[in-house]
Structures are given as C-alpha cells and as structure tokens.
C-alpha cells in the first residue's frame, strides 16, 4: 500500500513537472526569432524566413555564427547566448513550423 501511495505520488509529480508544452508552443528562446525572421510569408523583408527550414541547416548556421566562422551583423552576438541543447530544440521547432 505504501509502495502504491509512493508510486502514485511519483506519477503525480512527474505529470506535474514535465513540460507538457503543446506542439504549437515554442521552446525557450524560439518565440523571439519571429521578431525579425518572419513567421508569415507576407512581410517585405531581407531577413530569411526560418519556418520549415532544415533543422540541421539551422544548427550549422548557428554554430558558425557562435564560433565566428560564419560572418554576420547581429546573429554572432545572439548565437553566443544559446547552448547546443537550446539551439537543437529551437531548430527542431522552427523546422516543424509551416
């Protein structure tokens, strides 16, 4: 009985603390991108759209911006603020957007 109570307790905690983020909801950091990188296709912009782009390509670009091997005006300054794990989650989410 004690075991059952503990199991239920653990299950409750897991269900509570797991990020049950909806698929439509961006991971931390990703929502800021669409300030410059258009979410829709309507804006007249010289900044590339990222929705639906290959996640690996986004990761490669961000890694290049971060280590300076890929020239940039502002993305080098921004990329330095993100870890590989964060970038992977952001890239995967951007790739999954239409």
């Amino acid at each position, binding site marked *: 009985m004690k075991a059952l109570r503990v199991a239920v307790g653990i299950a409750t905690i897991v269900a509570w603390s797991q990020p049950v983020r909806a698929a439509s909801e961006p991971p931390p950091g990703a*929502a800021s991108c669409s300030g410059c990188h258009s979410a829709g296709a309507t804006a007249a912009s010289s900044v590339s759209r990222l929705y639906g782009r290959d996640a690996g390509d986004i990761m490669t670009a961000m890694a290049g911006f971060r280590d300076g091997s890929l020239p940039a005006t502002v993305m080098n300054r921004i990329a330095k603020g993100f870890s590989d794990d964060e970038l992977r989650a952001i890239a995967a989410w951007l790739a999954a957007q239409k």
Partner: protein
Amino acid sequence: MGISHRISRREFCGASAATVTALAFPLPAFAQSAARIVVIGGGFGGASCARALRQIDPKLQVTLVEPNRTFTACPFSNNVIAGLRSIEEQQFGYDKVAGAGVTVVAQAAAAINPAARTVGLADGTSLAYDRLVLSPGVDLRFDALPGYDEAAAAKMPHAWKAGEQTLLLRKQLEAMDDGGLVVIAAPANPYRCPPGPYERASLIAHYLKTKKPRSKLIILDAKDTFSKQRLFQNAWKELYPGMIEWVSLSQGGKVNAVDPATNTLITDFGNHTAQVANVIPPQIAGRIADIAGATDKTGWCAIDPVTFESRSAPNIHVIGDACLAGAMPKSAFSANAQAKACASAVAALIAGRSPDAPKLINTCYSLAAPGYGISVAGVYQPKNGLLADVEGAGGVSPADASRDFRAREADYAQSWFATVTAEVFG
C-alpha cells in the same frame, strides 16, 4: 476478514490516490474551456500577447482593451520627424487582431479590482478575468520638470508617443529658418527607447544638413553615458561634423526647468533658447499599472522573470515598457518578445502546468542616417529574480565596420519593422 480488510484498505488507498490526483489538477478540466484573459494596451506588447495566447490555446477567451482604433508605432517615427517617412506608414489597425479570435474592446481601462478580478471600463461596464496582462507602455511625467506640463508640450513637443506630437515636431523643424538652434532634452534612465534621443538627433541633423546647413543641434542630457554612444558619436563626426553638440550631465546638461513662453531650457550652467525645443521628460509606467497596484516606489512594475507576474499584484502580469525587466531595455522588440514568453507562461498557469523559464532576445536598430544602421542586441534569462544578460552574448555593432555593413544593418532595421508589425497587426 483479514483478506477483506486488505481489499478494503486497497480500495481506500485507490480512492485516496484518485482524490489526491483530482486535487492536484483542479484547474485544467474547468479553466481550460472557460479561462478569461484580459490584456490592457494594444501596442507591441499587448497586441502580441493577445494573439500569442490565442495561438497557444484557441480555447482561451482573450480580450484586448485599447481605446485607440489606430495604433501609431514609435520605432521609425524619428524618420517621420526628419521628413523621410509618412506618419501613415507608422499606423496600424486591429482588424487582424480581432480576426485572430481576440475580442477587441475600444475602451479605456479605468479601474481594476484585483480581489474580484474585474477591469472597469470608461463606459461603466466591466470585464471579469482569470488572469490580467498589463501592457500600458509609459506615461510622460508632467510633474517632474518645472514648466513642462501638457500645455508646454504643445509648444515644446516631446514626440515620445507617436502621432500628433511627432507631426508637431516635424512642422516646427520645417518652419525653422536656416541657422536655427534645435535643442533635445534627454532624460535620465530608465525611459522608453534608450537610443531614441540619439537616433533622433542624427536624423534631424541629416535633415538640417540637407535643407538648413547653417543650423545647430544641442543635446542636453541628464546622463553621462548613453546607448550605442561610441557608434553614434563616430557617426556624428563622420556625417555631421560640427553640427551636433552633446552636453553630458557632468558638463551641466541636465535640464532643471523650461520656459515654454520663450522656448528656453534652463540648466545649472545656463539657459538655452531654442528655435525648436524637443523635451523628452522623465517617464513612469502607464497609469493603469498604478491603479492595479502593480507599481513600486520607482513608478515601474517589478515582475517575476519567468511569468511576468507582478511582484505586488497576484494574477496580474506586466510586460513591455511598463515593467522592470532587469537588463532588457524598454523597446518594441523587447515588448514583443516578452509578450510571447508571458503568453506561454499564462497559458501554462491556466492549464495547471509550471511555466518553462524563458529565454529572451532583444535587438534594437538605430539609424545614424538613411542607409547607416547600428544595433545593440542582448540575450536574457531569469537569474536571481531578474531578467539578466546571458554573459558573453549581445553587444553593439563593431566600431570599425564598413559602410556596407552599416547599409545592411539599416536594411535589417526596415525588415524588422515590416516583420514585427506584420506579426502583431497583420
């Protein structure tokens, strides 16, 4: 007996586990279908937040309270002042916001009852909320600078809220004779758009150099340093030699009083009588934040950096210029980024989930001249109860960049405006 006892205890245990589970999740089943979020303020923060909430969870009932039917954007309004852009290009309506499922109420919010969770509107009606988001922007203080009240602003425009004031400053510059003196009074921190006064000085100088080249511009500053300072000062030397004079706080730049009758700005070191005086006064959070009990003694709103919930007013979240966002500047980009993070947090709280710690970005472009852009960027995350800079990230454009680099940043500035206004209003 023993067996039946065990069974009954197991049944009891099962029932108690179910009860515990139900108690742990009391909100989702009911709140998700009926949760009401009211957002006050239809600028870059509020309109973004309202739309993001609907996007995250279309079941949320989201109401945007904004008295103006047309929004006039501040970013790029310095171009209007310099005659480089029309005010119409700054203006946006709320049709698409409403089309996204947000109920837009064209009323001013007049009262907030945090205990009853209601917002009283100017017409006497009220709106009930489960969570309230405040994005009221700034109020200009007409009690902080002797001589500078609302009537004085009709003579010495602030042009720090875009619209009529922007056009007034433009008209005054157009009417000024060649050889005139333009004075900009810049406030102490914090205030809306830290690089704004210096971009304004740059673009006014561009206009003067083109049309009235014998004129001068003085910036009287209540600070000793300012945003993108080196980049601006290098650009001024290069583009407008001898035209712009910046007087810092320690050089006596702080304006102590103004006299609108004579267009005079008074400092400890003397008086400046201007042909055109642009007085940017000190600011505080929009009045409704104070009514809500969300302001602290500074006049701004302290917030939790994960949820943007007010430190003093439960169930009330504050985003944009009105909040104390730690290292994040008061910019439209920040407001838009905060709005989306706040929407995620509010949706999570409504659903009974614990919100993820956000990661936020700001990028602010300024123009030193048409085709000459400079920027400051930052990445932020919660740390010690504040939104702190992620170390090693962010910073300003390089001091030694080529003109091609500056041209690209000017282009990206335009792109940012087009993109963010399409996201918020399009």
